[in-house]
């Protein structure tokens, strides 16, 4: 979201603009080419269309002649950018200085992973753009051509349409996030674009290019972003209300996940799920056949394979504090369970309980990695006069 204008300019410097002409996509590619040309970075990480034409893939490259084939604002989100950043920097900071252009939710995932020590942002320049939402993978594979035009329609209106993911229709963090550079084009007439530095590193890079000062475009962009954010917030509320009703209680959970085939695609596509080996894929999580039979005898029957509801509850407990509501899990689900609606809904509540918001780069440690001595009084059973009775151990 846009922070206060003054605060942002203090931290990052003044906004620049690019005049109408090439349109946002062309302008972004031009500018990235200049940044490589000026020696500001060694390589770029951008989406390209795959040869079959029905998807996109991340490509890292330094040869600027390849830029013309890049698709800066792809219609879908096949591999969450946070995962791409992890592949590049999971061991140490990258040897190359890489500029990565990604959706805001992909950068937010990268921020969470960096707090987990699985992404190193030191040599990364992260660039975000106003995101109208991503088209569902399923729809895209069926008809890339009409989905591309639907997506360009979405970009010009700044809003998700019918074949966008539900997570996008409910997303309120679709514009400037804690990236180094942001490209803002919603609400700006005739294909003009704002180039906003978001960090000292971003500012230093942009200062080297001969860009025009763009303060004049800020009001129309900001007005449009808040108008769109309000509309998405309304959809979010509505969706969350329905989700709350749908999932409530054991019966609700069973009904929501009743057709889950236990493939764990949602977990492997999720950029946040951070365990090297998921507990639920590990040997220790498998129930002994004998025990299953005993349980079946006691209960009168048992679902096989067992523990589907436990899997989803466990994943919620493990990662909802960092969930960035990107919608990747829903897109990956072969049986169309609205996984992301459930996870976003729960995540909003767990994050609120810890006064935390995922995806920021404010240097705040993850909630489970810090504590206050005096907090959460209501969580443990209350001790009346234990103080007098208690004695230190040993």
């Amino acid at each position, binding site marked *: 979201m846009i922070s206060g204008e003054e605060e942002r300019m203090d931290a990052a410097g003044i906004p620049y603009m690019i005049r109408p002409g090439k349109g946002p996509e062309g302008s972004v590619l031009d500018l990235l080419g200049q940044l490589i040309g000026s020696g500001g970075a060694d390589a770029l990480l951008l989406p390209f269309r795959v040869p079959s034409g029905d998807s996109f893939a991340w490509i890292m490259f330094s040869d600027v002649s390849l830029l013309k084939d890049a698709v800066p604002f792809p219609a879908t989100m096949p591999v969450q950018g946070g995962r791409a950043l992890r592949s590049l920097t999971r061991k140490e900071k990258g040897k190359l200085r890489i500029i990565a252009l990604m959706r805001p939710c992909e950068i937010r995932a990268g921020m969470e992973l960096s707090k987990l020590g699985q992404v190193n942002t030191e040599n990364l320049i992260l660039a975000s753009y106003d995101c109208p939402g991503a088209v569902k993978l399923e729809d895209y594979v069926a008809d890339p051509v009409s989905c591309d035009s639907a997506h360009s329609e979405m970009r010009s209106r700044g809003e998700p349409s019918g074949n966008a993911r539900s997570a996008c229709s409910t997303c309120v963090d679709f514009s400037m996030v804690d990236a180094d550079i942001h490209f803002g084009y919603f609400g700006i007439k005739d294909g003009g674009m704002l180039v906003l530095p978001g960090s000292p590193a971003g500012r230093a890079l942009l200062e080297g290019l001969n860009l025009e000062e763009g303060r004049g475009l800020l009001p129309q962009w900001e007005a449009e972003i808040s108008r769109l954010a309000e509309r998405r917030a309304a959809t979010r509320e509505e969706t969350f209300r329905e989700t709350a009703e749908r999932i409530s209680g054991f019966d609700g959970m069973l009904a929501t996940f009743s057709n889950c085939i236990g493939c764990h695609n949602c977990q492997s596509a999720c950029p946040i799920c951070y365990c090297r080996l998921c507990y639920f894929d590990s040997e220790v999580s498998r129930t002994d056949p004998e025990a299953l039979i005993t349980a079946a005898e006691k209960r009168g*029957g048992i679902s096989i394979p067992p*523990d589907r509801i436990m899997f989803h509850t466990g994943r919620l407990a493990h990662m909802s504090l960092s969930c960035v509501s990107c919608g990747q899990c829903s897109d990956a689900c072969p049986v169309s369970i609205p996984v992301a609606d459930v996870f976003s*809904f729960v995540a909003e509540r767990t994050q609120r309980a810890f006064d935390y918001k995922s995806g920021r780069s404010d240097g705040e440690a993850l909630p489970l990695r810090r504590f206050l001595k005096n907090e959460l009084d209501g969580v443990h059973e209350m001790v009346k006069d234990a103080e007098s*009775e208690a004695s*230190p151990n040993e």
Partner: protein
Amino acid sequence: MNRQTDTEFTPKIVGFLCNWCTYAAADLAGTSRLKIPSTFSVIRVMCSSRIDHNLLLTTFFKGADGILVAGCHPGDCHYGEGNYYARRRFALLKKVMEVLDIDAERLQLSWISAAEGHRYAEVVGKFTEKIRELGPNPIKGSTRF
């Protein structure tokens, strides 16, 4: 297959007790011949912070009627700060269960020091009573989990 049809419900409760404090308190309660319900099963852990969400969820989804996590009082953890982290983790799991509305009240966290044998008996007794009022874990009676 025969479903349980007993009239008097005796809750099955699992206690995850920290070795350095509550487990010793349980011992003390035993030697002091205090009454502990026989269906209260104890699992000894080295610190309350050893307890992962999946340990509790597995216990819960396998049908325990109640789960007690008990460790040293804040400030007294044998390893310094384990119980502060445990408290956060516990709070998170409770929150998730609360939001999903799946019987969060079947989980309890208590601080019981090695010297508090009486308090141990009291906490276990009261918790058992509470679970008895709540009735059996609905998962136990369902064929769908």
